[in-house]
């Protein structure tokens, strides 16, 4: 418990450092959010635009404003705190999508990305564990060869190839599943597979490894010697130890799935948050970049913390001091 609290307390300064770095790095890149192919009608318009979004201020002043620690004289002549800022949970307006706040966009896109990530997580487990289990039990057989090859192939083929291939076969040729968009259950099938297969392949390999090792252990020989049925040996005695590597991999895997869905979201035109992650830095959408970095930093750090805790609970040998 004390360990948990210490980790939690450490999260806050870490997130602050990450967000501060993001804040300055994105502003150092050449160009700005309002640079376009054609220039604004006049330098006065250009200035007014920068002023409206406080881009005319010094970096330090912009940073204070972003944190919510900027004090200025209002129209009434009194000092007051500039509205908004991170400290009151306001990430500001997106500079590219000027009629939406960053929070607004995250609120709409994050549930979609989370749903997709969790579906793909389930898919990866459902695909990987049975294949890994089967190939380990039937080691050296044709089934093992085919299963292991399949696992290897899905690991090697990147999502931007796998996605279009799935679309071509199951969407355009066979017409079983929609080729994109989001909302109906059937629309989730191909993106879930495209995102989950790679991880499914890794789960299969971890499972096969774990199961193979487990089957060679002494206690399995003991169990067999005591006359336990083969099924009982496999499921009751071998499986629980064999699945441990998969469990410890599942934390980073979930984090990867929740944050790494950009390519798949783009291919299937899914209204998630991944697309914004890449496009916001390309379009110098300063507020959006910082908001998303903040979100992903918290997500990754918290997931890592939870995995460490779960590991301690599952395996009594693990103790945190």
């Amino acid at each position: 418990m004390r360990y948990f609290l210490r980790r939690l307390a450490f999260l806050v300064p870490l997130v602050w450092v990450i967000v501060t770095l993001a804040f300055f790095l994105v502003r150092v890149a050449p160009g700005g959010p309002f640079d376009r192919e054609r220039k604004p009608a006049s330098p006065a318009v250009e200035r007014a635009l920068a002023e409206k979004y406080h881009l005319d201020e010094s970096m330090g002043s912009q940073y204070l404003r972003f944190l919510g620690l900027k004090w200025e004289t209002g129209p009434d002549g009194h000092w007051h705190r500039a509205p908004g800022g991170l400290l009151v949970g306001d990430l500001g307006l997106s500079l590219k999508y000027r009629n939406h706040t960053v929070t607004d966009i995250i609120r709409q896109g994050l549930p979609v990305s989370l749903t997709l990530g969790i579906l793909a997580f389930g898919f990866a487990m459902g695909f990987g564990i049975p294949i890994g289990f089967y190939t380990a039990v039937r080691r050296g057989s044709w089934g093992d060869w085919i299963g292991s090859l399949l696992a290897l192939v899905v690991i090697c083929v990147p999502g931007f190839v796998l996605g279009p291939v799935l679309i071509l076969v199951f969407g355009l040729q066979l017409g079983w599943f929609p080729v994109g968009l989001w909302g109906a259950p059937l629309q989730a099938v191909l993106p879930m597979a495209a995102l989950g297969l790679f991880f499914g392949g890794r789960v299969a390999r971890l499972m096969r490894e774990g199961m193979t090792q487990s089957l060679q252990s002494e206690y399995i020989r003991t169990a067999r010697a005591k006359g336990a049925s083969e099924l009982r040996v496999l499921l009751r005695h071998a499986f629980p130890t064999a699945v441990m590597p998969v469990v410890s991999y599942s934390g980073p895997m979930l984090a990867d799935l929740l944050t790494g869905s950009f390519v798949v979201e783009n291919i299937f035109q899914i209204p998630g948050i991944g697309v914004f992650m890449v496009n916001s830095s390309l379009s110098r959408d300063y507020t959006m970049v910082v908001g998303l970095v903040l979100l992903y930093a918290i997500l990754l750090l918290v997931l890592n913390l939870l995995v460490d805790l779960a590991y301690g609970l599952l395996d009594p040998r693990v103790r945190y001091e």
Partner: protein
Amino acid sequence: MPRADLVVLNGPEIETLDPHVLTGQADGRVSGALFEGLTRFDPVSGRGVPGLAERWDVSPNGRRYTFHLRTNAAFSTGEPIRAEDFVWSWRHAVDPSTAADYSGFFFYVKGGKELVTGTSTNLASLGIRALNPLMVEVELVNPTPFFVDLCAMRIMAVMPRWTVERFGDQWVRAEPLPCSGAFELVAWLPNNRVRVRKSPRYWDAANVRPQVVDFLSSDSPSTALNLYLTGEVDVLIEKGLIPIELNDVLLKRPDFHTFSYLGTYFMRFNVTRKPFDDVRVRRAMSLVLDKWRIVDRITKLGERPTSAVTPPGTGGYSPPPGLGHNLCVATNAAERAVAFTANLAEAKRLLAEAGYPEGRGFPTFTYMFNAGGGGGSRTHEKIAVEFQAMLQEHLGIQMELRPVEWKTYLSEMSRLNYDVIRGSWVGDYQDPTTFLDCFLGDSGNNRTGWKNARYDALRERAAGTSDPAARVALLQEAETLLCRDEVPILPVFTYTGLYAYDPNRVGGIHPNLTDEHPVSAMFLKR
């Protein structure tokens, strides 16, 4: 959500629907469905035709327009649209605190330039006034033959004053949103879709066929094509969204349609840098580019090689022959070969004259372009590689390629931090000035460092003349100076667009130069 009557794949994600501050074409398509001005775009010609104004009178000197509003013009929420609403909307557009990128369209209106550039702050000095609730009078600086086209632009649209005053910059998020156009807003979901519904109060509602229209966003050509092929979308309207690799196949299909529009692909020379300050160098480099190779082997949509910056047919104007014109108009391979050989001989002579015989002593320089541009199929890179090879082979000069990402490209171009850079321009209205004005000495869109007093003076004289033939002659003289004599830019080709819809199922879409396809005119054939 149930499927809309008509689903349009609209291109990149909408940035804003506010007609005063929007800049992108995708934004304009949706905003144009929601907000209308004195005129609106005709789906066939792409020019301004009566919108909220049913007719107008023009004074004999061409400088005063009196618009007569429709008596039944109303916002979707029921408020009538009156002359004062236009006065307020236009003043709001030129107010620098609105920060409207496109407020340059008001330079044609008396007092507009002073307000937009900040030399005047008296909004009442803008040349628009309400003669009575149904009559708007507009005073122009000069006779402007395309003014009625300009009035159909998004930024000239009428907006609900009370909503803007209440919600400020975020007024387009008001619910319900008072709309002056054929449709009203139902839902605006980021990175997903914008749904609009026919406005029963629109003056021409009887002729608006689709009840509900969805605008989908996507910036991936293959995704867009998949959605179109499986019937998820009815119309693929964004020309940048068709995978160029598949042009050969798709062009043969009856549902893929090409059209010419006001767009020119060119290259900019930085004339403030050596050796590009020497016109002979610019001319030599311009002559050595075989533009047919580029349109035949790279872009492949039937683009036309050009030596001028203004595309043909721009408001009845024909661009004058520019440098290397003979090659561009050659009709067969033999003619092209003759023209190209002549261009090469001239190029070598010019380069030698400039002090670099056979390219000896010519400094190595870079060609900058935006990587990943051109629909993800690296068109810009392929064109750069062709140009590089031609310069090396025919003139013996070395050009290095420098791909940069979009924002860096824009920033370096504006700061004149390049040697030679890719450029393009898409015209806003059907008049040559939409292209020629870019290269005025004080234009922010010039970005070549080229300033020419005679060019600026010709443009000024053209603006002041009310005789259309004399005006055309002056503009042609200016363009000759730009594209034949001085060549701070190297025009390559005029664009061809490609869009997709099944003509047996969808109607109301017509090719036009301004690439304006109002959804209010589209319909499904049952």
